[in-house]
C-alpha cells in the first residue's frame, strides 16, 4: 500500500536514475508522466474517442462504397483494408479502452480507494494502448493496412507473403499490433482485479460493490484469461508467415481450424469483455434516474458472473459451418441458447428497476433505455443464429453484421455514451448540455436503426459480408442506401457529442458534488475529485452508501428524505473536505512511457525483420525497453522528496 497516509517513509537514498523524477502534476508534461488513475482514465477516454472517430470514418467509407451497386469509392484492396481496420479499431481501440477508461476513473472512486493497486503499471498499459494503436495505423503509410479481417482467418493470413494469398504486410502489422494492445489490456485487467479485491474501503463488502465495479471485475478476469489465447494464436500466425512454421498450413500438416478454435476461444469471451462494462454502466444509471434501487442486485450480479463463465463455452458457434460434426454443433447450439437466459434475466431486472420509479429522462437515462431496447433486438437475433440450420443461412451474411452491431453499438456504445453523460460532471466538474444531449441521443437512435435494421433484411435476402461490391439487379441497392443515410446521421450525432463535450468542459453548468442525486460514493467527493479522491476514506455502511445518507424508507418501503441528508451529512462532508493531514500519492514517472516506447521499435523490427536495418531497431528498442524496465524497477513508487 503506497497510498495510505501513514505509509513508512522511504529511505532517502538517491537511486541511480538518469532521468530526473518528474514532479509536475499540471501542464502538458504532467500527462506524459502521470500515474494518477483519473488522469490516465481521461487519457484512455480521449484516445479511445479519437480512435472511435477513425473507426467511424472507416465505417462511413464502407457505407459510401456500398451505398449503391458496383460502388467505386474504394478499390477492392482499399475496401479490404478499411473493413479490417474498422473492426479492429472498434474492438481493440474503442470498445476495450473506453471501458477501461471508465474502470480506471471510477473503480477506485466507487470502492473508496485513492488509486489503483499498480499506478505505474496502469500508465504503462495506457502507453501500450497508444503505441499499439499508432503502430497499427502507421501500416497505412508503410505498405498497406491489415487486410485479412479483424478475425484474420488462416491460412489466408498465415500464408507466407511471397506466395501471394494476401498481398502486403498488413497481417504482420495486425498480429504484432494486437499483441501490443493485449499487453496493455492485460495490465489494465490485473490492476482492476487487484484493486477491486484488495483496496476497497472499510465496509465495502463484495456484495455492497456497485454493479459497475462487479462487471468490470468479471470483465478483467475474462481479459486476463482471454488475451493469452489470442497472443498465442497471433504469434503462431506470425511464425507461419515469416519463419516457415506450419501451425495452420494444411499443406504441411497444420490445421486452419485450430486457429479458428483459438481465435474464438478468445473472441467470444471478448464479446462479453465488450458488453459487460456496458451492462455495468446501465445498472448504475437506471436506479439513479428511477429513484429506486436496482431490482434484484444479487441476481444481476450473479447473472453477470454466469455470463462470464458461460462465455467460455460458446466459442464454436462462430464455426457452425466449418464441418465440426452434429454432436459438437448441437452442444454449442445449446450452450449458446443457455447464455441467453442470464442475459434475459438482466434485461427484465432492469425494466423492473424502472417500473414504478420516478423516472427522469436525462440523456444518460435515455441512452441506458436505448441500450435495453436495442440490445434486446441484438440478443433475439442472436437466438436465431443459435438455431444452427438457420445459422447456415445467416452466417457470414449481413444478418450477422446487423446482429452484432445491435449488441455492440446498440448495446455497448449506447451504454458508453450513457456513461459519458452520467459521469462527465464528476470528471470535469461541469454538466454536458442536456439539450444537445437529447439531439445526440435521438439522432443516434434514428441513425443507428436506419443503418443496421436494413442490414438484417439484406442478410436474409442473401447479401454476404465483406464484399466490396454487389451487382445491380439483386434488390439490395435501396436497403443499402438507407443504411448509408443512417450511418451519416450517426456521424452527425457523434459530432454533436464532440461539440457538446468541448463546449461544456469550458462553459457547462457547474455540477457540484452530486448533480444527479446519486447513490454511490463517487458522488460524495468533489467534482472533479482531488488527486487523493477522498480526504478521509469513507466507511461503508450499505450498498448504495451515499443514498442511505440521504434517504431512508418508511414501513411501506416508501422513500423518505433524511433531515439534512445528502452531501451535507458529516460523512460526506469529511470525504469532500480538505484533508487534515498530508496524503501521500504515488509520484509521477517517466518509465512506463519509456518502456512502452522501447517496445515500438521492436514491433517494427518484427514486421520488417527481413531487412538488414531491422537489427538497428532491435538494438535501439531493446536498449530503451531494458532501460525503462530497469529504471522503473529501482525507482521508488513515491519519490523521496515527496515524503518531506
Amino acid at each position, binding site marked *: 500500500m503506497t497510498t495510505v497516509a501513514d505509509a513508512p517513509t522511504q529511505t532517502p537514498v538517491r537511486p541511480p536514475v538518469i532521468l530526473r523524477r518528474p514532479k509536475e502534476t499540471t501542464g502538458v508534461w504532467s500527462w506524459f508522466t502521470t500515474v494518477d488513475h483519473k488522469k490516465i482514465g481521461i487519457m484512455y477516454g480521449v484516445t479511445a474517442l479519437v480512435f472511435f472517430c477513425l473507426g467511424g470514418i472507416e465505417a462511413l467509407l464502407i457505407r459510401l462504397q456500398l451505398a449503391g451497386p458496383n460502388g467505386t469509392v474504394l478499390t477492392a484492396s482499399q475496401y479490404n483494408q478499411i473493413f479490417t481496420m474498422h473492426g479492429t479499431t472498434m474492438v481493440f481501440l474503442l470498445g476495450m479502452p473506453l471501458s477501461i477508461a471508465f474502470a480506471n476513473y471510477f473503480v477506485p472512486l466507487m470502492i473508496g480507494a485513492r488509486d489503483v493497486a499498480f499506478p505505474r503499471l496502469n500508465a504503462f498499459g495506457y502507453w501500450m494502448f497508444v503505441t499499439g494503436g499508432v503502430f497499427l495505423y502507421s501500416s497505412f503509410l508503410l505498405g498497406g493496412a491489415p487486410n485479412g479481417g479483424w478475425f484474420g482467418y488462416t491460412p489466408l493470413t498465415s500464408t507466407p507473403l511471397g506466395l501471394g494469398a494476401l498481398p502486403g504486410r498488413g497481417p504482420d502489422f495486425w498480429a504484432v499490433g494486437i499483441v501490443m494492445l493485449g499487453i496493455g489490456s492485460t495490465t489494465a485487467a490485473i490492476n482492476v482485479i487487484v484493486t477491486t479485491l484488495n483496496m476497497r474501503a472499510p465496509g465495502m463488502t463484495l456484495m455492497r460493490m456497485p454493479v459497475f465495479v462487479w462487471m468490470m471485475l468479471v470483465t478483467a478476469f475474462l481479459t486476463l484469461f482471454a488475451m493469452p489465447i489470442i497472443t498465442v494464436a497471433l504469434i503462431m500466425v506470425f511464425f507461419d508467415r515469416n519463419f516457415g512454421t506450419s501451425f495452420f498450413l494444411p*499443406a504441411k500438416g497444420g490445421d486452419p481450424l485450430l486457429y479458428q478454435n483459438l481465435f474464438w476461444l478468445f473472441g467470444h469471451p471478448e464479446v462479453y469483455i465488450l458488453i459487460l462494462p456496458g451492462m455495468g454502466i446501465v445498472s448504475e444509471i437506471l436506479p439513479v434516474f428511477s429513484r429506486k434501487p436496482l431490482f434484484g442486485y444479487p441476481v444481476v450480479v450473479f447473472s453477470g458472473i454466469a455470463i462470464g463463465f458461460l462465455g467460455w463455452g460458446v466459442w464454436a458457434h462462430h464455426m457452425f459451418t466449418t464441418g465440426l460434426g452434429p454432436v459438437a454443433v448441437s452442444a454449442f447450439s445449446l450452450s449458446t441458447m443457455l447464455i441467453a437466459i442470464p442475459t434475459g434475466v438482466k*434485461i427484465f431486472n432492469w425494466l423492473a428497476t*424502472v417500473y414504478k420509479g420516478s423516472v427522469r*429522462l436525462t440523456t444518460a437515462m435515455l441512452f441506458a433505455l436505448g441500450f435495453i431496447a436495442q440490445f434486446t433486438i441484438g440478443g433475439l*437475433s442472436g437466438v436465431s443464429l443459435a438455431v444452427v*440450420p438457420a445459422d*447456415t*443461412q445467416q452466417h457470414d451474411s449481413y444478418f450477422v453484421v446487423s446482429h452484432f452491431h445491435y449488441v455492440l453499438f446498440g448495446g455497448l456504445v449506447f451504454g458508453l455514451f450513457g456513461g459519458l453523460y452520467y459521469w462527465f460532471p464528476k470528471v470535469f466538474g461541469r454538466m454536458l448540455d442536456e439539450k444537445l444531449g437529447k439531439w445526440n441521443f435521438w439522432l443516434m437512435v434514428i441513425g443507428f436503426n436506419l443503418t443496421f435494421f436494413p442490414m438484417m433484411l439484406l442478410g436474409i435476402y442473401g447479401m454476404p459480408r465483406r464484399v466490396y461490391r454487389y451487382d445491380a439487379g439483386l*434488390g439490395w441497392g435501396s436497403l443499402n442506401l438507407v443504411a448509408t443515410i443512417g450511418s451519416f446521421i450517426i456521424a452527425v450525432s457523434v459530432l454533436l457529442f464532440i461539440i457538446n463535450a468541448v463546449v461544456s468542459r469550458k462553459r457547462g453548468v457547474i455540477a457540484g458534488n452530486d448533480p444527479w442525486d446519486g447513490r454511490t460514493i463517487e458522488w460524495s467527493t468533489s467534482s472533479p475529485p482531488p488527486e487523493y479522491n477522498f480526504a478521509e476514506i469513507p466507511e461503508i455502511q450499505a450498498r448504495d452508501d451515499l443514498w442511505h445518507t440521504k434517504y431512508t*424508507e418508511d414501513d411501506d418501503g416508501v422513500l423518505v428524505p433524511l433531515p439534512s441528508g445528502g452531501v451535507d451529512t458529516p460523512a460526506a462532508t469529511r470525504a469532500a473536505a480538505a484533508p487534515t493531514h498530508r496524503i501521500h500519492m504515488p509520484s509521477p514517472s517517466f518509465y512506463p512511457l519509456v518502456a512502452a516506447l522501447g517496445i515500438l521499435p521492436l514491433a517494427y523490427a518484427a514486421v520488417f525483420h527481413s531487412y538488414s536495418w531491422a537489427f538497428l531497431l532491435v538494438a535501439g528498442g531493446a536498449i530503451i525497453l531494458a532501460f525503462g524496465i530497469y529504471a522503473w524497477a529501482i525507482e521508488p513508487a513515491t519519490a523521496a522528496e515527496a515524503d518531506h
Partner: protein
Amino acid sequence: MTNRNSRRGRWWLLLAGAATVALAACSPANGKNTLAPHGTNAHQIDNLIYPIWIVAVIVGLIVVGGTIFVALRYRQRPGRSDRPKQIHGNLTVEILWTIIPAVILAVIAVPTISLIFKEDATPSNAVEVTVVGKQWWWEFEYPGANGQPPVVTADELHIPTGRNIDLSLKACDPSLPYGVNNGPGCNVIHSFWVPELAGKEDVVPGQTNHLTLRTSTAGTYLGQCAQYCGLSHANMHFRVIAQSPTAYDAWLSSQRQVPAVSLASAGEAGTLFTKTFACSNCHTTSSSTLSTYGPNLSHLASRSTFASGYFKLTKSQLMKWIMNAPGLIPMQSQDCRKGPPGSPGVTCVGMPSFTQNTPKGMPVMTTAQAQILATYLLSLK
C-alpha cells in the same frame, strides 16, 4: 380488464405475424433470397425459423414496448410523487423470468437439434460432385463411372432435379503440385452458399466437408463465396443450373466429348495459347478430365457465364477479359506468364494482364490476337 389484455395479446400476435409476412412479401426475387427456398434444405430451414422469428418478434415487441412504457408511464412530472416505493427485488418473479425463457429456448432446441442431425445424414442414391474452392472461382468435378472419364468444369454447377446431390467440398486439389498456401494445390478457406437451395458450408483446406443439395424445380440459382478469401472475395460467384435428369445426362455426356477443336488444329490460336502468352501454364483446352490452376476451358463455349460467373460469355467481353482481366476483377498475378504457379519467382493468383505491367522481354497482346484467342475459345462447345 382480462378482455382488454387478451385483445392486446392478439394485437401483438397479429403485428408479429404481419411483420414476418411482410418480410417475405417485400423480399426481392434476386436468385439469392433465403426466403424464396427452392431446395429441400432451404425449405426445412425456413420452416424451422419462421415460428422462431415470430416468437422473437413478440418477445422483442414486449421488451421494447415495455421499455418505452415504463419510461413514459413513470416519468417524473408535477403532481406525481418523486418518492417511489423502494422495491429491492422479488425472488418469485425473478425465478419466473428465468424459467419462462428457459422453457421457450428448450422448445426451440428440440427441432433445431433434430434438423442438425437430419442435415448431417449421408444422402442415399446421391449424385456425387466434388467442389473445389480456389481464389476466386469454383471448380466442379464429376467423377468418372462405367469406364467414362471424369469431367472437370468451372463456374456453373449442373445438377439433375429430383435427386440428392452429395457435394464433397475441398480447398485442396491434390492433382496440382502447388497451392497458394505452399503445398499440393491447397487454397484458403471459402464457403459454398446457394441461398435458395441450402445453407452454406465452408470449404476448408485439409478436410472434406459435405453438403446435400436437392431441388425439384429446374432453374438457375445464384451462389457466392461467403467466407472472406482475399482480394476478390466479392467477385467469387457461381451458378447452380438444375435441369431435368435427361437434360442433365445430355449435358454430362457432351462434357465428356473431346473438345470440338483440337489445339493442334487451331493454327495461330494454338501458338498464342501455348507459347506467346503461355495461357497453358494455367489452363487446358484439350481435355475436360484435367484439373488445372485456372478454369478448364475445354468446353468453355457450353457455358453461359465466365470469370466466376461474373460476366455473360460474349465475344467482346471475353476479349476484354483475355487482354486485361485484372482491370475487370482485381487479382494479384503479374508473373503468371513466366512459368506455371510454383515456379521460382512466380506469384500468380488469378489471371494476369497481357496489356499492362508486361514482364520485360515479353510481348504485349494486340486486339487482333485477343480476337483470335476468343474466337478459338468460343468454338469449344
